[in-house]
């Protein structure tokens, strides 16, 4: 279970760690727009490579990250197979009508070159989106995130919600685990291999009640502590974690502004001037 928590509360000391929260959050949001806006492999592939470089430069705990990457790859592959089962002909819609059948199992289930292309681009897009968020989450601390969100004019109470939620996820996950273990010692079977779907659902509900009560019992403590420190008195807020912009921040600022302009250009041209293809497909 501990393997599945990637939140770091102490700032690291690599290049990406040392950027301000403002830079991290803004770059991340623009990169998300960049990933979402297109299915074009020519745009996604460079970002994919950059995100791998970014991940390596962060010097993460590889044992943790490896587990994460394996799980995500398997889940996404499964998703791709389900996508294919839902509509085997999806490629012809995306790649301009062609339909080159490679393998044909039955009349409905066939694999065409276009579908294969679409599904692999989709897979890379999903993995890129995962890699970017992995780099983001590994490089940021909850309070830097709140500071970054505040810099894009999100009301500071919402920023606080983000930072407190991030701060308490490890605690709540630990409680979840404790409750699960103590239920197991009382003889409740929670192993997915041994229990049926119905009984697992029932047991999930059994964990739920004590988890809700312990989680919401904290609310009083935390809010009293915050009130005592004068939270919510002022209209604005400054953040202790936010330091002055370094040289690297200025470079990143230039990059994300250019990227933002490019995204705006791309989205406008894609929507105003209809293309004859929905996604770039080299083998038409």
């Amino acid at each position: 279970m501990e393997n599945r928590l990637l939140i770091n509360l102490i700032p690291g000391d690599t290049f990406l760690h040392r950027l301000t929260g403002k830079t991290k959050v803004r770059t991340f949001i623009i990169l998300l727009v960049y990933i979402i806006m297109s299915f074009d492999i020519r745009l996604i592939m460079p970002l994919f490579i950059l995100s791998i470089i970014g991940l390596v430069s962060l010097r993460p705990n590889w044992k943790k990250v490896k587990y994460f990457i394996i799980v995500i790859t398997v889940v996404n592959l499964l998703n791709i197979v389900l996508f294919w089962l839902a509509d085997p002909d999806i490629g012809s819609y995306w790649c301009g009508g062609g339909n080159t059948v490679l393998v044909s199992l039955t009349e409905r289930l066939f694999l065409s070159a276009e579908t294969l292309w679409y599904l692999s681009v989709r897979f890379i897009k999903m993995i890129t989106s995962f890699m970017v968020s992995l780099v983001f989450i590994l490089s940021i601390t909850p309070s830097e995130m709140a500071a970054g969100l505040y810099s894009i004019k999100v009301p500071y109470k919402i920023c606080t919600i983000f930072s407190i939620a991030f701060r308490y996820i490890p605690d709540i996950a630990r409680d979840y685990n404790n409750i699960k273990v103590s239920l197991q010692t009382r003889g409740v079977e929670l192993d997915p291999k041994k229990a049926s779907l119905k009984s697992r659902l029932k047991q999930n509900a059994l964990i739920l009640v004590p988890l809700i009560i312990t989680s919401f019992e904290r609310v009083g403590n935390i809010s009293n502590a915050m009130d005592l420190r004068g939270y919510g008195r002022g209209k604005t807020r400054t953040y202790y974690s936010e330091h002055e912009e370094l040289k690297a921040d200025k470079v990143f600022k230039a990059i994300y502004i250019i990227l933002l302009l490019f995204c705006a250009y791309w989205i406008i041209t894609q929507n105003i001037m209809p293309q004859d293809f929905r996604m770039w497909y080299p083998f038409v």
Partner: protein
Amino acid sequence: MNKVLKTLLGVWNTKTVVAIAIGAALFGVLMNFGGIPIYTNTRLTTAMIVPVIVGSMFGPVPAFIACFVGNTIADLIGGWGYWFDWSIGNGVLGFIIGLLPLYGAKINEGIFKPLHAVIYAITCVVGNAFAFGVITPLLTVAFYGGELTITFLQAFAGGIANTAVLVIIGIPILYALARRNARGRNLVMEEEKEE
């Protein structure tokens, strides 16, 4: 009208902020650990209980934010890519479920009657149909273009799973919370007694 708006927004003091944050964290944890996958990117999860609790205590807008933030965080630490259409869809569902105080089910004061349970079940069905049948597909088209078949299949699976969880687990939990809060409600304050 003003009163309705006030119930919708909730009171934004420190306690609300912290409760929403804890709700969002709980949502993230349940989404990642307590889910049983049923279809692509769709899981049978008990996380949908969070807006019921936050909504019953603080109102619909806090429930919306808890859901939206919770889903965003779950995506961030769970790493199945970003699907803001789903985050917003879940937020809208949270809002509709969180309407509890509006029709008189005051969990904080221990009031939850069978009639409220029926209305609650109806809002669950309507909320799921609206959030995943209308909002999410619309946003999917706007954000990602196309893929409607899959979104509808996902929405259908997710909607049914959510409704089942909300009704089967939600109603007993609401009863339990109401009973818990109703303890000591039969006591009358000294001053009130004299009047």
